[in-house]
């Protein structure tokens, strides 16, 4: 046990920071820091620069571009990417479908998909949730019926982030009706331009278009797009959800928000809450302290996970702590930021007389209000806080065994 960073770790952090500073364009980082929606190409550009340095998929098998770094180094990398305002490697690619294909895909699938996934040459979106399933994935209804050399897929997916940008989608589908609902589920990938796929945008309460419904009407999926074995989709999904550890706590992202709050609240021309108001400062101090704790909790949980079995047993239940606390930190930061706005929090930046909200004076304003509304999603999507607490109570504390 040695609880400080080693010189090698500090050096790695400096190296990452300097690479990012030199290679990622300032306009991209500024847009991220101000929490503006990014054009698709900027995401692609950034990920390709990261990939060139081996920063996009360090947690993958070495054979496919992974780096075999310690949990602490991987966490440092993620924190730096986030806190520098570099767009994160697309999680659907590098944290979700990539590791599943690497672990369970055929050799052919690995060769075809993995390099493209790492380099964001293919943009994947996720088709898990369905309108009536919510957190109850096991009751999904989308069906894939065997037909000739492939499947005919019918159903509806929802909450599909960035479906409008995606080249491919990975889906959970029902390939047979078994007694246990978890069985009979398979995982497959399909190009978004397949006939029969339509995307309907959903406008979120932050006024932005991130999420979509995806309708699948008689979509033909060739058999080689089935991932792994038929009927094992539930296991793969569990494996996949266990892969997200280093980014789950969103530490760098929150650190960036807190730094921005401190800067805004320290301006002499500040409009709302100011750093010299003790109550506001106290709330900010609390957030900074808790984030410091979370950054260590995050490394501890990753470290435990690396030390133990990383098989297909599903996520380490303690990652629920990262998920919940990470969401809370982002949400609290978004509240503090809102409070720095003063009366102008009542205005959206966009002028009704026209003009580009991204360039005109005051554009930051609507981004802050948007971020406040949008941040509520962190405690809902990807397993709500309530689900996470259930997991902690049952899987970690062992409660509810006797009734």
């Amino acid at each position, binding site marked *: 046990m040695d609880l400080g960073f080693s010189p090698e770790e500090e050096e790695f952090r400096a190296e990452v920071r300097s690479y990012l500073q030199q290679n990622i364009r300032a306009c991209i980082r500024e847009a991220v820091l101000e929490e503006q929606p990014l054009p698709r190409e900027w995401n692609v550009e950034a990920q390709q620069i990261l990939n060139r340095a081996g920063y996009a998929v360090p947690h993958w098998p070495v054979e496919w571009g992974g780096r075999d770094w310690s949990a602490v180094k991987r966490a440092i990398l993620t924190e730096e990417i986030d806190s520098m305002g570099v767009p994160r490697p697309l999680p659907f690619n590098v944290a979700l479908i990539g590791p599943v294909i690497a672990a369970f895909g055929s050799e052919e699938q690995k060769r075809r998909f993995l390099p493209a996934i790492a380099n964001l040459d293919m943009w994947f979106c996720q088709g898990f949730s369905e309108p009536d399933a919510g957190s109850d994935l096991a009751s999904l209804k989308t069906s894939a019926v065997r037909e000739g050399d492939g499947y005919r897929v019918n159903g509806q997916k929802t909450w599909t982030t960035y479906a409008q940008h995606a080249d491919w989608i990975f889906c959970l589908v029902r390939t047979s009706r078994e007694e246990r609902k978890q069985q009979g589920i398979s995982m497959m990938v399909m190009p978004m331009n397949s006939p029969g796929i339509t995307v309907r945008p959903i406008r979120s*309460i932050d006024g932005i278009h991130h*999420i979509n419904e995806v309708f699948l009407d008689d979509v033909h999926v060739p058999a080689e797009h089935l991932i792994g074995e038929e009927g094992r989709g539930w296991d793969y999904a569990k494996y996949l959800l266990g892969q997200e550890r280093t980014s789950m706590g969103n530490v760098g992202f929150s650190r960036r928000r807190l730094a921005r709050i401190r800067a805004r609240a320290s301006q002499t021309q500040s409009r709302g809450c100011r750093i010299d108001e003790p109550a506001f400062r106290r709330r900010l101090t609390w957030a900074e302290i808790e984030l410091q704790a979370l950054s260590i909790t995050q490394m501890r949980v990753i470290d435990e996970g690396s030390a133990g079995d990383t098989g297909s047993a599903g996520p380490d239940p303690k990652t629920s702590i990262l998920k919940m606390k990470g969401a809370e930190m982002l949400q609290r930061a978004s509240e503090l930021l809102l409070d720095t706005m*003063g009366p102008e929090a009542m*205005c*959206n930046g966009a002028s009704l007389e026209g003009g580009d909200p991204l360039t005109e004076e005051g554009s930051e304003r609507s981004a802050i209000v948007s971020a406040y509304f949008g941040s509520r999603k962190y405690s809902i999507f990807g397993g*709500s806080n309530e689900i996470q607490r259930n997991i902690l109570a049952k899987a970690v504390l062992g409660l509810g065994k006797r009734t």
Partner: protein
Amino acid sequence: MNFGLSEEQQMLSDSVDRMMAGHAQAAAADPISHWQDYCDLGLPALSLPEAHGGYGGAEEVMIAFTAYGRYLAEAPLLQPLLSGRVLSEAGGERAHDLLARIISGQDRVALCLWEPNSGWHWDAPQTKADPMAQGWRLRGQKTAVLDADASVWLLCPARMADGIGLFLVPPHSDGVKIKTMRTPDGRRVANFAFDGAYLPADAAIGDPTKNGALLARAIDEGIAAVCAEMVGAMDRLLEITVEYMETRKQFGVSIGSFQALQHRAADMLIEIEQAKSMTFHAVAAQRKDAANRSCNVAAAKALVNRAARFVGQQAIQLHGGMGMTEEYPAGRYFQRLTVLEMMFGNTDHHLSQVEKAGGVTG
């Protein structure tokens, strides 16, 4: 102290409720189109002296704004409340004429309280009015003026040697630049820049040494009204949420049967009831002396703000993904509550006001 509605209050409540429920169903494009109905009910004058058509007090204002919040009404009701008080007390022919036109629905007016670097402190405007031979020249900026656009009169505080001047700026005046925007809950809001706008001599109303106290009173009435609006919105939002919880199934049962979610809803109820009580307190405080009134009204807004943040956020949480889409009403209530939280001051601001006054006085 007595919490039941009188016969007149019940009638007011019923008619306001009926009107706003009707408007909510009609979903007209422009809330201004509903405004005449409000005027027909006498709402812009509600708490003014009888001479102006008033027939109520702070309790009646609360009744109207509670319904306003419940139905997420959008017609411009807050501004006439604020300006009506100022115009009726400031005296002078010009003020009285304008007031009559406002009450009848012919004209609209908006009080401009904040400036780019004022925060929520309205009492030290940087906008200046330079006296000229035949009138005034106005220089300065005003931000976040609710329900305003180029077609309304502006009631504009400005810095004077002996206090706060109050200036009436006609619609579409020369030298007034405007940027209109939407509030995050979809209403209209505007920023104004006065670049030497010329005003006639009688544009100045009231007495600069007394206008500050008059504005303070109008704002405190406005805060109590906004508290009521928030309570109305929270009440309905909780109902919507409970309905959703009973309908939505997960793991084979309605999510309303999960104890952890039930307890969350119970906590929301408690916050709302406390907010309602504190709104009552703000209403009762309108009859106290200025210092007591402002301190207790600020305390009310702080507590109602906190309740609104909690109730709004938890309603979204209990709606799950549905709460995140604009396709469900919960999100619109959350947006409204957030805007109102920021109206007249956020929680920290109001708590600081209470502390400066030495604490709540009961």
